[in-house]
């Protein structure tokens, strides 16, 4: 398959079932909501070492938030419910509770509740107050700028993580420009995030390493500087490869996000230096979800 001069590999992205949740952070201004969100969802690029993958999903106007203030919605993904709960509590406790004027609310209903303010309330040292409003429980925790308001729990979602595609280009600048376009397109898809910096990964990994302690190591088959010494997947016309990694709250959202990203890259096409589109997989034995590039782009 060739689209706009870009060769589409006959391969697939291999993705995994994950546990996810959505939270809404509000503040007196969008600036402060973003400060809290950027801190809470920072260092959350990969479950390999961050514990979770997270990012801002979208900004919310005051009419779309529970307390009528500007805010952001964010998604967090982890490999288990236990790890997700741990990461959520740590990140909200250290980054949202601490941020001036913020409040945090559940952003989804799920199959089971995930503690949000339920344990953070003990920061109130006995002065915390519970409020049950419209069937939902909130905790008012006294802090130095007034009160931190946190909904007791949020929802747990069965989701998909690790959707991806690789952009092979004639130059690094052209690969990066295509990635920026893809990340911008994916950012418009509700229910999906690209958790890496700017939505882009340059250090695509393979499972395992020659060093026994490392669970993952560089994807040498796609490293242009290793052509000729490693088993390479790259032709002579490819100077750089960048990867887009996507997490989504459902299989359907993942497909929409993958298509949005791939379409954006194909629109740039060969004229923009894009040579091939490929995807990362592990032979199909590890991930429950397979996203065939040609199927998605058909």
């Amino acid at each position, binding site marked *: 398959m060739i689209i706009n001069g870009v060769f589409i590999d006959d391969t697939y992205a291999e993705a995994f079932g994950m546990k996810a949740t959505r939270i809404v952070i*509000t503040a*007196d201004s969008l600036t402060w909501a973003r400060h809290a969100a950027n801190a809470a969802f920072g260092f959350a690029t990969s479950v390999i070492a961050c514990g979770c993958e997270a990012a801002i999903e979208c900004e919310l106007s005051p009419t779309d938030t*529970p*307390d*009528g*203030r500007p805010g952001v919605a964010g998604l967090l993904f982890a490999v288990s419910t236990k790890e997700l709960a741990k990461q959520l509590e740590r990140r909200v406790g250290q980054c949202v509770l601490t941020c001036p004027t913020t*409040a945090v609310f559940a952003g989804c209903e799920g199959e089971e509740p995930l503690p949000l303010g339920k344990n953070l309330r003990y920061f109130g040292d*006995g*002065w915390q*107050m*519970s*409020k*049950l*409003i*419209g069937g939902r429980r*909130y905790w*008012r925790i006294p802090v130095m700028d*007034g*009160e931190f*308001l946190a909904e007791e729990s949020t929802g747990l979602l069965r989701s998909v993580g690790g959707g991806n595609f690789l952009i092979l280009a004639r130059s690094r600048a052209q690969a990066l420009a295509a990635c920026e376009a893809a990340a911008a397109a994916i950012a418009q898809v509700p229910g999906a995030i690209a958790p890496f910096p700017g939505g882009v990964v340059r250090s695509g990994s393979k499972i395992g390493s020659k060093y026994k302690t490392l669970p993952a190591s560089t994807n040498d088959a796609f490293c242009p500087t290793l052509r000729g010494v490693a088993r390479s997947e790259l032709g002579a016309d490819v100077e750089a490869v960048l990867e887009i990694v996507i997490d989504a709250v459902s299989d359907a959202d993942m497909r929409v996000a993958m298509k949005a990203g791939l379409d954006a890259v194909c629109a740039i096409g060969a004229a923009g230096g894009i040579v091939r589109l490929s995807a990362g997989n592990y032979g199909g034995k590890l991930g429950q979800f397979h996203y065939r590039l040609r199927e998605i782009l058909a």
Partner: protein
Amino acid sequence: MSAMTLTLRAAPAGRIDMSGVLPETLGGRTAGDIAAQTVRLDGNPVALGDLFAVTPGEAGAALLIRAGSGRLDCLGKGMTAGTLRVEGPAGHYAGQGLRGGELLIEGDAGDCAANGMQGGLLRIAGNAGDWLGAALIGDRAGMGGGVVAVAGDAGDRLGDRMRRGLILVRGKAGAACGARLLAGTLVVAGGCAGAPGPGLRRGSLILGRAPATMPATYNDAGVADLSWLGLLRRHAEAILPGVVPDSPRARRHMGDLACGGKGEILVPA
């Protein structure tokens, strides 16, 4: 879906206990069957049909009581679902033990409305009597859940020993408003008579007007922006608009310090 209708034949000679006259118990039954149901008039059994003209309705339909009376007690007692509308006033204990559904009283309600209420919505278009949402003598706690919306005034001891839930009053409340409150939220847009919140343990009493005197056992905690008031306002606007203040900014008085001091009275800043 046609509503079931009970039309009061004449002003009652005594107090009628309307326990068991609920949309969930009468729906789908025949007129004769409903008319044969027993209620109590001054404690004596009497057929419902002797007091009311009965128009049956489908199962799940609303129940309408036409020409309500201040002598109809225990309206909506223990209701778990459906809608019960009373055209006119209601007697004492309206919505007692209400667990779900909506009880709408289009007039005044007597004393002890919402006693033991656990859920659902009680709307009173007129005034409510004393002890609204309160515990009866011997009860450990008053209202334990649900929402009460009073468009008029409320009497004395509003929410006495209330445990959970929300009471909205557009008018004024009488004496000892929020007395011995255990938890939950009381909103009285028109303010209250005398000193509010005696013995209040936890929970929130929100007054639209500052009381003439704040009890000595409350300490002024200053003015703060309380974002939960925004949540409450959004919730309350759909039930009884204009009762919760527009601004989340309020002056907080913490107390009752004689009873732990972890409750609050909020007044406009």
